[in-house]
């Protein structure tokens, strides 16, 4: 009797755990059972998983292995006959590795992504893609600092990352943000639960001559649960339930999407040092602008500065003319966000709200600047409305 009660209790716990476990957690539990040589448990678990997610192809592959193992020794993971298309098997093997590795190499609590220096109060979340790990991390904004709240397996471009040309089937690397929200009803089945376009190519991409368009975060067709790690035309593809989870956090026009090769992790102290040095530079720029000392103001700009068709010389001439004519200028900077650009050296995207007042003209605008470190100090490489 006691034993029965205990069994029921265990069963109840298992039931609860299953309700909370993601398909990926459950797949991981299957592998855990395999590793501890409890193959019957593994088969039981994978069959339950398939019942709930019949289109989870990787789960079918694992089930195939577990069944075959009862019949004869396995040669490899995904022990299919050689006549089937090997790239498909390879895709599933890579998915398995990516999913398991991500679960085992979850960043510890004290590690922070090097890219997120500062979030502004209105940005509730930031999305960060680690291309090497085929993983998208969701960070919540906790007092301007990111806190990891979820992570998901993602599919990226067939040909990898660093998109430069239209049709190269690569995913761009850079700092972007969500520019729209396309619901399922407006899309074909291919995009699944919905889509969130991002602003590729951004100013920096354009300046480097990169082209192409239509890079989205989107779901998967109804007949699959997920796709292999490298399978899209450059988009970031998530399982439909995962896309829906992310959709609850996305703010159109606000939510940053940072796509990195392999995410660099740092700690709070190092990030704070970097953030404050940039914040000081930004404040100095603001103060120098308001002082109407145009040469001090222009000293914040790189000689390689460019904005649209305007180069440094054109910008300097324009500013000397405008600033010199003012009797007073007041500049307010608020809602500052700062993101270090992946892949680039000492390159930070700074976005803020600018409240400009003068005796002639006043306006409030959203501004974006690219700051680079040049000769030991932070300088502006690009500036424009956002």
């Amino acid at each position, binding site marked *: 009797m006691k034993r029965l009660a205990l069994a029921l209790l265990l069963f109840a716990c298992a039931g609860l755990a299953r309700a909370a476990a993601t398909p990926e957690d459950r797949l991981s539990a299957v592998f855990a059972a395999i590793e501890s040589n409890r193959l019957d448990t593994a088969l039981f678990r994978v069959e339950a998983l398939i019942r709930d997610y019949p289109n989870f192809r990787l*789960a*079918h592959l694992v089930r195939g292995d577990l069944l075959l193992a009862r019949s004869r020794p396995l040669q490899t993971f995904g022990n299919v006959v050689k006549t089937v298309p090997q790239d*498909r098997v390879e895709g599933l093997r890579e998915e398995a590795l990516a999913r398991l590795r991500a679960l085992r190499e979850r960043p510890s609590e004290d590690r922070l992504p090097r890219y997120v220096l500062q979030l502004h109060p209105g940005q509730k979340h930031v999305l960060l893609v680690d291309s090497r790990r085929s993983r998208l991390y969701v960070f919540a904004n906790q007092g301007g600092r990111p806190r990891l709240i979820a992570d998901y397996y993602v599919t990226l471009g067939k040909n990898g990352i660093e998109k430069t040309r239209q049709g190269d089937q690569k995913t761009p690397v850079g700092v972007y943000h969500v520019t729209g929200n396309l619901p399922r009803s407006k899309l074909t089945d291919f995009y699944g639960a919905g889509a969130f376009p991002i602003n590729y190519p951004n100013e920096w991409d354009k300046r480097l001559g990169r082209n192409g368009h239509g890079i989205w975060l989107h779901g998967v067709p109804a007949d699959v649960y997920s796709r292999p790690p490298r399978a899209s035309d450059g988009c970031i593809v998530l399982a439909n339930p995962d896309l829906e989870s992310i959709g609850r956090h996305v703010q159109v026009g606000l939510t940053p999407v940072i796509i990195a090769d392999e995410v660099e992790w740092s700690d709070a102290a190092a990030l704070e040092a970097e953030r404050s040095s940039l914040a000081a530079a930004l404040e100095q720029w603001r103060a120098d602008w308001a002082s109407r000392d145009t040469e001090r103001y222009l000293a914040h700009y790189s000689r390689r500065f460019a904005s649209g068709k305007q180069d440094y010389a054109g910008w300097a001439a324009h500013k000397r003319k405008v600033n010199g004519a003012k009797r007073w200028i007041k500049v307010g900077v608020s809602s500052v966000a700062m993101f270090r650009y992946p892949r680039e050296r000492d390159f930070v995207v700074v976005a803020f709200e600018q409240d400009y007042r003068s005796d002639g003209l006043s306006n409030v605008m959203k501004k974006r600047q690219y700051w680079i470190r040049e000769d030991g100090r932070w300088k502006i490489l690009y500036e424009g409305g956002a």
Partner: protein
Amino acid sequence: MIRIITACAAALCLALPARADELQEASKLLKAGQHQQALERVNKALAAKPRDPQARFLKGLIFTEQGKAKEAIEIFTKLTQDYPELPEPYNNLAVIYAGQGHYDKARAALEQSIRTHPSYATAYENLGDVYAKLASQAYNKALQIDSSNTGAQNKLSLVRELVGGPAPAPVAAAKEPAKEPAKEPAVVAQKGPEKSDQPAEKPAPAADPAAEILKAVNGWAQAWSKKDADAYLSYYAKDFDPPGRQSRADWEKSRRSRIAAPKSISVGIGSPKVTLQGNDSARVAFRQTYRSDVFKGTSNKILVLVKADGRWQIREEKGG
């Protein structure tokens, strides 16, 4: 309680008057491919004894051979319900399901067969094939491959004999094992009692009766394995009660023919458990693994031995 006599049950059934000839004939006709005639014979036998498992099993086989899967499934399913302890109907159900491509059902049936008979070799072999088939289906789902081109013939073996057949007639109640009135402690002895360092341990029969009893059981199995019918029969007590209503002479005749028929026989005794019932009676329960060139099977068996003329001899033999 259904009495199960391993291996010899079929023989005893065949030896029964009236029905035996019909079934034997039906079996021959089936082997000769004369399905319709075989069916007529079986139906005749069933008219007299509608529940007879041997006849029903044979009828299921005939339907299977005729490609009447639906009818065969019905018969074998009913047999598994009426005699859940028999592994063969499960096995054959699985073979039919597999033939239809229903590998999940085949797997369930075979797993059930193994659950009732954990070392039933045929079911294991078939299950291996079914697992391989299921694996290939799973791979096809994983890789989105059209499975129509991977339909390799399955090579599952249909069992053609109901070896662990239940005896048709209930045995006289007196022969039922008496419920041990006071539970005597069970003596569990190791298999292989002959110890090489004690070549002739004759003077110690009283010291360890269990070892002596097991020696007799092992000798019986060895004689059977060697196809030495005389030696085999010598293990049976004079008052051994043949199953059914056979005479001792008929039973011995059928045993001799059953032992002579296969090219090879191997009988194994697994996990024997000896329960002494007084000084000269004992009950030995074990798993019997029978393997011949035509059939493999495992079943539970109970031998009741008595000590007569200074030797342990079999008085009762039954499935348990």
